[in-house]
């Protein structure tokens, strides 16, 4: 061993002064790529808490935790991510129904306490909140199927010649394909007034078990075929799939499930409970709310009789909804089940004051859902002229089989579903139809789809028009005079903008008929004075408590008279409420506190 061997290792010190081969420390720490999958971010305002991210996560890394009170269209839950599970596969981001969930390009997180590796993005503040870069749902790509299976429909030119149903209905394949789009979040359950078990029956349809689907459907809706055809479907309005794509065709799927069976009684197997045996309940008015009360009380063993003034049950769904939307056989199928459930049905029978008193005495409880059967008038001069008719009368006469004349041209005043129905019926009766509506098109309470269908059938829409008066012309026609309106903001939050008449302008429209469909009211002439005095409000509707009971103990009410939305599903929801209330009242004798 020489000196060289001893010194050689120290030669390495020479390198201390040469340029290093390694990359300087400051350059080694690179930011994540623009589409790096780093820590999650969430736009909590956009997020609706559907929980699809939690469902898809293969590592069970996502918990849905409550962060605010649930409202319709928002479960109030938000995803909390456990980074002791996450593997940054980003399936949660790709499946996100709202596109609110994303990933920042931050990827460094050193932690002493492992319990802290869990946070709710967007709720718990993190340095990477609001990150511009990172993984996002790709434009046009989603794990959610955004497009609805199209519903086959009759051609508009063909359908105005006939009364055949416009909507053809899904085939089995189409229905199952559509049902498979559902993410089962249940936001629809909150939006549905009756809180139907929507994800469950859609799931059953997807699995091809239509009996099970019908069972879920009938669990809290005794007129599902009607709802499957004409429901206002608030469920679809909040559908989480519909936020970025088209909402699930919930209504058409329900329709599909009900159309699979000719006789519901053969498929449904309700657990008949004899809880209400020996108790009698009278139902005045055979509309959706009355039918609901009757059916569910009957399966619980109550003795129920329905009194209906018209020749068929169904209320507004019978006399109001045209048959090209809701054919008679569909209605009869549902009434048939009611009969098989043991409900006594008295049609063509109008209950009057004395009988009402007698019913009140003979029964343990009484439910009325007589609906809004009388039209409000236009309130303008000339409305008593011959040729000014009411949409409700037109529809009723048409459905009970009377001959209806509408002439060559009509103007329909109003913008609700009744107005649209009256116009489409008039169109099928051969008239040129104009709808005169006070507000803008987007303010119309009628279904958007209905308006589109009406326009496709050649019905003209004149918006922001306020009727001024009606005059008789020498040629026998009517002169419908209207003035334009401007929109002013609503006086209460959540209200609709209001039309304000621009004075001094008059427009003329020559028509054979003016059909009024501005609104309907309930009538109480049949009701004994003392009862009416107690239950009716100064606005012409009936107030009930949370059990559906009116101010008069033992009298329950529901339907259009009670709720503000005046649609069939709300009426069914009222009925369900009353079912509980009546059961409590008759069996437990609970008198609900009046406040």
């Amino acid at each position, binding site marked *: 061993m020489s000196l060289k061997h001893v010194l050689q290792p120290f030669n390495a010190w020479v390198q201390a002064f040469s340029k290093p081969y390694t990359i300087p420390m400051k350059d080694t720490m690179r930011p994540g790529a623009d589409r790096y999958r780093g820590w999650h971010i969430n736009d909590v305002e956009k997020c609706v808490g559907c929980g699809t991210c939690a469902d898809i996560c293969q590592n069970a890394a996502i918990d849905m935790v409550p962060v605010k009170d649930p409202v319709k269209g928002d479960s109030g839950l938000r995803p909390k991510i456990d980074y002791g599970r996450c593997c940054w596969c980003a399936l949660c981001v790709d499946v996100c129904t709202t596109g609110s969930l994303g990933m920042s390009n931050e990827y460094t997180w050193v932690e002493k306490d492992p319990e802290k590796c869990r946070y709710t993005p967007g709720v718990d503040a993190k340095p990477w909140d609001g990150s511009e870069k990172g993984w996002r749902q790709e434009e046009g790509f989603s794990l959610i199927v955004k497009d609805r299976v199209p519903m086959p429909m009759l051609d508009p030119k063909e359908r105005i010649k006939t009364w055949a149903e416009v909507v053809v209905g899904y085939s089995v394949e189409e229905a199952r394909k559509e049902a498979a789009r559902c993410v089962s979040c249940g936001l629809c359950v909150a939006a549905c007034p009756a809180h139907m078990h929507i994800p469950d029956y859609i799931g059953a349809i997807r699995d091809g078990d239509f009996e099970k689907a019908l069972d879920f459907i009938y669990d809290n809706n005794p007129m599902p075929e009607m709802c499957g055809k004409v429901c206002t479907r608030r469920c679809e309005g909040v559908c989480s799939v519909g936020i970025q794509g088209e909402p699930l065709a919930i209504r058409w799927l329900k329709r599909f499930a009900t159309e699979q069976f000719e006789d519901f009684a053969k498929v449904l197997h309700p657990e008949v409970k004899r809880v209400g045996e020996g108790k009698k309940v009278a139902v005045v008015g055979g509309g959706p709310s009355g039918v609901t009360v009757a059916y569910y009380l009957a399966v619980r063993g109550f003795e129920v009789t329905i009194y209906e003034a018209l020749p068929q049950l169904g209320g507004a769904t019978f006399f109001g909804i045209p048959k090209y939307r809701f054919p008679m056989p569909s209605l009869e199928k549902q009434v048939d089940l009611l009969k098989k459930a043991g409900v006594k049905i008295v049609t063509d029978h109008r209950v009057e004051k004395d009988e009402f008193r007698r019913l009140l005495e003979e029964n343990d409880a009484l439910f009325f859902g007589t609906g*809004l059967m009388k039209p*409000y*008038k236009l309130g*303008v001069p000339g409305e008593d002229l011959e040729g000014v008719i009411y949409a409700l009368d037109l529809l009723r006469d048409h459905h009970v089989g009377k001959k209806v004349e509408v002439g060559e041209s009509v103007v329909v005043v109003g913008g609700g579903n*009744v107005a649209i129905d009256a116009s489409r019926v008039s169109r099928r009766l051969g008239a040129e139809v104009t709808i005169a509506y006070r507000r803008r098109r987007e303010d119309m309470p009628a279904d958007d789809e209905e308006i589109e269908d009406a326009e496709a059938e050649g019905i003209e829409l004149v918006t922001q028009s306020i009727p001024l008066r009606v005059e008789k012309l020498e040629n026998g026609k009517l002169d419908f005079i209207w003035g334009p309106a401007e929109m002013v903001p609503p006086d209460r939050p959540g209200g609709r903008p209001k039309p304000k008449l621009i004075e001094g302008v008059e427009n003329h429209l020559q028509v054979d008929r003016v059909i009024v469909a501005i*609104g*309907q009211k309930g009538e109480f002439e049949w009701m004994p004075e003392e009862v*009416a*005095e107690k239950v*009716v409000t100064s606005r012409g509707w009936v107030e009930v408590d949370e059990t559906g009971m009116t101010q008069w103990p033992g009298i329950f009410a529901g339907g259009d008279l009670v709720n503000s939305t005046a649609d069939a599903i709300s009426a069914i929801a009222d009925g369900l409420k009353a079912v509980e209330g009546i059961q409590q009242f008759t069996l437990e004798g609970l008198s609900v506190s009046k406040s």
Partner: protein
Amino acid sequence: MEFNSIQEVLDFAVRQEQKAGRFYGLMAEKSTDVVARKFFREMVGEERKHEAKLKAIKSGKLSGFSGQGTPQMNLTEVLGEPVFREDITLQEGLIIAMRAEKDAYEMYEGLKAFARDEELKKILEGLAAEELEHKARMESIYDQVVQREN
């Protein structure tokens, strides 16, 4: 009519409200329709509230009028002029009430022209605005109840 002080104007306004109240009371008694009857009774209560408000202003408990600025819909101008019948409906009742508020508004507007005192003018203006507000509220109710468009 000539007013010499604010007190006089307010007294007059109180009398007007009382008159209206009596009018609605009478209609409530006479009408057979249960809804209309209830509505008129509610209106009696409304007029009492207005009366109380005016009295509060008079005694200095309230400093002035405060309209909520409900937007006008000019419905009153379009609708016909129903007269009172025994079987009057809520719709007609509402129109009558709308018209009554409008008449009151026009009366105060007219009186304003004769007022010489600035203070008086101001109080009359306030009263007119108040009545206009009532009218708009009636129109709003009409809009929500009658023209529900379902």
